[in-house]
């Protein structure tokens, strides 16, 4: 739609964005509050960040969460990309409907169900619960997000490039590695980042599938939050928000540069 926005449109978007960002901004600002009370502004201070540095429990949980997230995001990216290729490039195969059903369902499946069912599987298999079971659970949860992102990229781009390579005798695997893969790398990177942040964020599934010695950061934060607001929690939340924001902005800049390079390349081909 190209007609200009009315003042109603502008107000609607402004209110929407304010609603989305105000609580986050408040949280960030209060992480620098010298006073322990939310309503009292005691001046700017880094006291809560200093306190955080000495909180072994939080730091340990953060370290576990980061490792789980890196591992499960990587596994989910591989699985999710394979699934996306299977769904967009393999035509029909036996059990395709069941396959796509299993791929999309975790996106909306309530987390309590996924968490409970995975736990019961781990118990039935008699696996020791801990780091690895959480990583497997998060891989299963986040694979579908990677698939959807990569799949929409695979549907978007010009298939004639692949077909031309195949017509010229390029084997499928080589076609995929030299033509398809470079074109979908931004989507794969975005999928990895989303999987990483979802894993870092998950409380419910991790609570079900974790065991002794593998308390993740959200489980730790949750048990603190239930006891009330603590400024240290504001501080750790601010650090996480800053990391995510930096990562997202960096990746979108990268995607933009990649896109313009691709456009130039496409123009070059035309000339």
């Amino acid at each position, binding site marked *: 739609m190209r007609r200009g926005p009315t003042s109603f449109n502008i107000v609607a978007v402004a209110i929407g964005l304010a609603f989305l960002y105000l609580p*986050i901004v408040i*949280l960030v600002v209060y992480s620098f509050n010298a006073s322990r009370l939310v309503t009292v502004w005691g001046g700017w201070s880094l006291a809560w960040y200093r306190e955080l540095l000495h909180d072994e429990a939080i730091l340990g949980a953060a370290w576990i969460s980061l490792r789980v997230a890196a591992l499960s995001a990587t596994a989910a990216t591989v*699985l999710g990309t394979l699934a996306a290729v299977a769904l967009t490039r393999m035509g029909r195969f036996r059990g395709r409907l069941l396959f796509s059903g299993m791929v999309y369902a975790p996106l909306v499946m*309530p987390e309590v169900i996924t968490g*409970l069912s995975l736990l019961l599987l781990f118990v039935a298999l008699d696996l020791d619960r801990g780091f690895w079971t959480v990583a497997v659970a998060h891989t*299963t949860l986040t694979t579908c997000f990677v698939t959807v992102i990569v799949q929409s990229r695979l549907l978007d781009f010009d298939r004639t490039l692949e077909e031309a390579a195949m017509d010229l005798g390029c084997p499928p695997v080589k076609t995929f590695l030299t033509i398809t893969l470079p074109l979908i790398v931004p989507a794969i990177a975005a999928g990895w980042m989303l999987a990483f*942040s979802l894993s870092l964020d998950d409380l419910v599934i991790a609570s079900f599938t974790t065991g002794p010695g593998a308390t993740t950061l959200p489980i730790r*934060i949750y048990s603190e939050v239930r006891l009330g607001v603590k400024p240290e929690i504001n501080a750790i939340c601010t650090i996480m928000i800053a990391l995510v924001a930096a990562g997202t902005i960096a990746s979108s800049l990268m995607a933009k540069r990649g896109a313009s390079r691709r456009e130039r390349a496409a123009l070059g081909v035309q000339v």
Partner: protein
Amino acid sequence: MQRDRTKRSWGARIVILVPYLWLAVFFLAPFVIVLKISLSQSALAQPPYLPVFDLAAGWQGVTAFATQLSLDSFRLLGSDAIYLLSYLKSLQVAAISTALLFALGYPIAYGMARAPKAWQPALVMAVVLPFWTSFLIRIYAWINILQRDGLLNDVLMRMHVIDAPAAWLSSDTAIYIGVVYSYLPFMVLPLYASLEKMDESLLEAAADLGCPAWKAFWLITFPLSLPGAAAGALLSFIPIVGEFVIPDLLGGSESQMIGQTLWIEFFSNRDWPVASAIAVALLGLLLVPILFYERLQQRSLEGGSA
């Protein structure tokens, strides 16, 4: 391209099989186990349910196992009002929240679609970004605001809207605020996607033929945005029904949503069969919306081929 089933290369088979097997083992098979345990009985054992499937006992083990299965957990769900009430409460919260999300999300998505083209990627990013920051953090941020000595009461009292601090936290209002806040991107983005790709010449044609703008909106824009609305509604409704974190942190103790009931049965009462029965019943309740959602996804992501 590769319709020939018999001559599919090994590479292609691996591409399909690896994610297929992973999902079959870690997503599909667990549901069978949940179903099985929902038919078991609670026991003071490790694991805390009976009977335990014993493959070593051979066929006799299987028959012994089958005779010990029971519907007790499901009977309990039917007989104790607390379960029914929490299912109803979940459906109510999900339905009202989805309506609120639509009412709030539609003007936002519409405004985004009508913003200058150059701004739109930035606006989409602005809506997505909060989704990338932790869900738990965003709920926690609302506790800062809604608690008794929190910011909302502070602001309202300074403006002399209220005289004494009101109890915002631990109420249904807080649940609705938290749910709408958390799920807003899920509603806005599909709506925006369907509004953004709309053919503007339709509206021009309507205007040329003398159709007033509000009528053109109602007759053209709105019906064309319905697929986006359906996607947004399903993406919100289904997970909200099973929501645990939001009602647990923001809601009151007088009534529970079903996700909380399941959580308590599992973690506090250690009654795995009842927790499993709740999960099975919840899944049954959500089966129809989930199937709708699956069809929508298949159509939009597989070009209608499936």
